[in-house]
């Protein structure tokens, strides 16, 4: 395509106008119509206060899980006739990739209460991010691990059967299996770290209550804090309306958190009336333009692109 000076001038003017319009919009923000308030905001805030306090009553995730099970009189197994309808493709309702959907956006300090050691690690990662220094092990398509699984973007499926619920995240082909057949965890001496944890649960009506242990140390998300290999979770999953699956989650991690971190995760069923959506496997090997490596200063960089000209390799790894 040919280049003309007028086209360049037009482009610059358009961009300048765009930026100016944006700046004016920001300047005029106070006069804009206020954002619509969530009519359920007060009720959700009260529920969050109650559930946060519930977590604080128990020193361990297992303690909370056991209390919930006792309260449900051990739970009642579902049958093929009483399986809740969780069919469909879902995606996270809000939160971006921040672990706590009610917390600040990724890049600002999250709401979890970290121990001094883990707070220092978090603060450094937040400060480094602001300086443009950041690397994520998931760049190599490693497992996101648990509880990071909960805040992954993209699509998800939930497959419920009487004896097992299978949760599939499109990202990183990451699958969780929650056993509801009455089994317990492996004996402590036989437990070992797993990529998405060892999860057992029971049904309390149409609510799935889960305990997760045997996890790996990792990060909640980039600049969202780190967890140890002692992290455990308790979850209560519930379909609150035709298109919304909610998980109330308590994270316990004594090395990293001074108190359990309660978060309300929510997943919305995607309208796929055209039946065009597909959950396809991920592979970091399928397109070399997606190669990302860690730089010597702890940052991230793309490898050599296939579309780069020959001779530009000195700029790449």
């Amino acid at each position: 395509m040919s280049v003309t000076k007028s086209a360049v001038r037009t482009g610059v003017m358009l961009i300048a106008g765009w930026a100016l319009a944006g700046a004016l919009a920001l300047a005029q923000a106070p006069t804009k119509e206020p954002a619509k308030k969530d009519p359920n905001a007060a009720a959700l805030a009260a529920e969050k206060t109650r559930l946060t306090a519930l977590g604080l009553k128990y020193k361990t995730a297992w303690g909370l899980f056991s209390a919930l099970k006792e309260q449900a009189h051990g739970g009642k197994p579902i049958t093929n006739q009483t399986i809740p309808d969780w069919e469909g493709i879902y995606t996270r309702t809000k939160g971006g990739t921040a672990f706590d959907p009610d917390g600040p956006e990724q890049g600002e300090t999250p709401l979890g209460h970290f121990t001094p050691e883990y707070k220092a690690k978090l603060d450094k990662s937040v400060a480094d991010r602001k300086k443009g220094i950041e690397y994520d092990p998931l760049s190599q398509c490693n497992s996101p691990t648990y509880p990071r699984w909960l805040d992954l973007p993209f699509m998800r499926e939930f497959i419920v059967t009487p004896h097992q619920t299978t949760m599939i995240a499109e990202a990183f082909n990451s699958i969780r299996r929650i056993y509801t057949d009455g089994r317990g965890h492996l004996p402590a001496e036989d437990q070992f770290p797993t990529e998405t944890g060892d999860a057992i649960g029971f049904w309390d009506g149409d609510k799935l209550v889960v305990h997760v242990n045997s996890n790996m140390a990792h990060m909640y998300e980039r600049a969202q804090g780190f967890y140890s290999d002692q992290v455990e979770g308790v979850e209560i999953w519930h379909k609150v309306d035709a298109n919304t699956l909610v998980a109330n989650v308590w994270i316990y991690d004594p090395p990293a958190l001074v108190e359990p971190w309660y978060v309300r995760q929510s997943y919305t069923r995607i309208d796929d009336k055209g039946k065009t959506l597909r959950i396809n496997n991920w592979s970091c090997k399928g397109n070399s333009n997606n190669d990302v490596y860690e730089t010597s200063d702890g940052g991230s960089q793309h490898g050599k692109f296939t579309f780069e000209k020959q001779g530009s390799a000195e700029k790449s790894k």
Partner: protein
Amino acid sequence: MRRLALTWAAAALALAPLAVAHHSASMFEAVKTVTLTGVVKEFQYTNPHSWLIVDVKGADGTITSWGFEAEGPSTLMRAGIRKSDLAPGTKLTITGHPMRDGRPAATWIKATRADGRVMDPHPPKE
């Protein structure tokens, strides 16, 4: 090179998230955008990221292939962008956050085909 504009666009940034979920976006300029006009060379519709390769002719006639990174196929499908929408030879103008190191790559913010169709690779909220 036909670089229509390289500008700081902080005011527009809130509307243009860096589309990189499986890796950090730190290799891209968060507060600069580049807008180019060219022809689609290839649409790599792949996980975990898709790449739209666009040939851009410079003032001296030299062709530079630029890569624009977006999320994978499921996100593009939800955004209404199919592989056939950007077949090789399609003329367009595209805006993205460029690489910090100056290589010809950027995150894809918005593309406008010659027929006027605007393609934002970020799906609408459900």
